[in-house]
């Protein structure tokens, strides 16, 4: 089974569909406000130890401090740059490998065991070796991000290429299309939905890669800053990069969903 299992296409996370009814919006906002309010009150009244648990107002003060010193924007810039570079490298390489595996059976069979192994391995554990190879910091974080991201993109591209209707390829060939035309005009457009789904999974994995890379092997960025503040028990300051990561996660996921919707609308 290990070798012959093949790799199944990955589905993006199931996300609940938001109905844009105003009632749901109001209730949703109310939920967040209630959560923050309860937390604040619990810290103020002393039900929870505010030093350990912090509180929304303390986090706001910590954010203001990190913002004014310019540190927050600096960390954010580093993290976003790592995320972008890691993701783009993975997208280019992953799509190329996926197409190669999809078009050629021998390539598929040869790479299948490695793809499977990399996909099921917690690659974070390899970070010490990468630090030895690439040094501490930017390059290592990008390498960890790349390793986490490239596999889902390659696997999904591969499944996308496999799902292409052969008659489409024949049609391009009949009209005298070259091998390049076949890939650019038939294979890529037809496998687009699965490739995009791969991008969506890849984006969330890339963010995990940045967090892990920075926590373990970096001297800059939001993840690095969290570990520094945690070591000094500055809980409110830990929450600033943490909340930033949550917001980046939401924004990138929404962007990917929007992109999927827009690029697929041409089909109908």
């Amino acid at each position, binding site marked *: 089974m290990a070798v012959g299992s093949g790799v199944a296409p990955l589905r993006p996370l199931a996300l609940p569909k938001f109905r844009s009814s105003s009632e749901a919006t109001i209730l949703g906002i109310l939920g967040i406000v209630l959560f923050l309010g309860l937390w604040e009150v619990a810290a103020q009244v002393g039900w929870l130890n505010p030093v350990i648990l912090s509180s929304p107002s303390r986090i706001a003060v910590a954010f203001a401090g990190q913002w004014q010193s310019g540190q927050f924007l600096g960390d954010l810039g580093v993290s976003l740059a790592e995320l972008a570079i890691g993701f783009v490298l993975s997208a280019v390489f992953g799509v190329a490998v996926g197409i190669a595996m999809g078009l050629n059976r021998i390539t598929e069979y040869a790479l299948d065991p490695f793809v499977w192994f990399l996909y099921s391995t917690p690659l974070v554990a390899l970070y010490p070796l990468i630090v030895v190879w690439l040094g501490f910091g930017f390059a290592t974080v990008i390498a960890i991000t790349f390793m986490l991201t490239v596999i889902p993109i390659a696997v999904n591209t591969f499944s996308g290429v496999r799902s292409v209707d052969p008659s489409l390829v024949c049609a391009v060939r009949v009209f005298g299309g070259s091998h390049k035309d076949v890939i650019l005009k038939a294979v890529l457009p037809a496998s687009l939905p699965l490739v995009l789904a791969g991008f969506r999974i890849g984006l969330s994995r890339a963010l*995990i890669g940045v967090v892990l890379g920075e926590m373990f092997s970096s001297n800059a960025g939001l993840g690095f800053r969290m570990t520094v503040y945690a070591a000094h028990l500055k809980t409110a300051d830990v929450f600033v990069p943490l909340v930033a990561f949550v917001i980046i996660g939401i924004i990138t996921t929404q962007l990917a969903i929007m992109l999927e919707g827009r690029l697929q609308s041409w089909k109908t």
Partner: protein
Amino acid sequence: MILSRRLVVGSISVAAFLVLWQFVGQREIVRSDLISYPTEVLGTFIHLTATGELGTNASVTLQEFFEGFVPSIAFGVIFGVVLALVKPLRELLDPLLTAIYTAPTIAFIPIFVVWFGVGTYSKVVIVFISAIFPIMINTRVGVSEIAEPWLRAVRSFGADQLQVVTKAILPGSMPAIMAGIRLGLGRAIVGLIAAEMYVSISGIGRMIQVYSSAARASEIIVLVVVIAVFGYVCVALLRSVENRMGTWRSDLE
């Protein structure tokens, strides 16, 4: 025939990789303490097993994993069903839960260490938190996609609310729940190892951290493979459970 060709080509490529690795490592074309080589890795595995170091640490990690993962399945399914059935609660909590679900859970590791200490407790919590959100949200989506006629059929035969849940809702949403459990499993393993590597007293992740500061590639590779095999066994077990349920489903239809 096709399967056997897959097996042959796959085996050849893995064998070629191992031979190349052995050659490059042993001949010191690349410094072997950076990449090790297969026979050394095998020797290290035997050594770590024989001294009992691997077994002791693996049992700590396993225990943390199950103490976090089993409750996350139970609570994840229960919360998911409740969220799907109680509309006001769902609308109140949806944005908040989705936000935490989309966020990288591992970013919570430093704060959990502050809250729950450096021992096993903070690892159990990270496993629980990593796994519960995919399970809960998948259950919630699965339950709300159950066809209304099913529920009406069960009700019209006089089922009470509890029976509707156990006879229609849970079986009907089982594929989505299993998908959620599989997603949660992967996240939980990564979270657990990362948390142990971040700070801990014992466990596989702790071993990785210790050997990495000594730049011992062969030990690290052994540990990475051990984790990968554990993940693979879990996924295979889940698949077999799922398949068994699948045959049950097709029997019904």
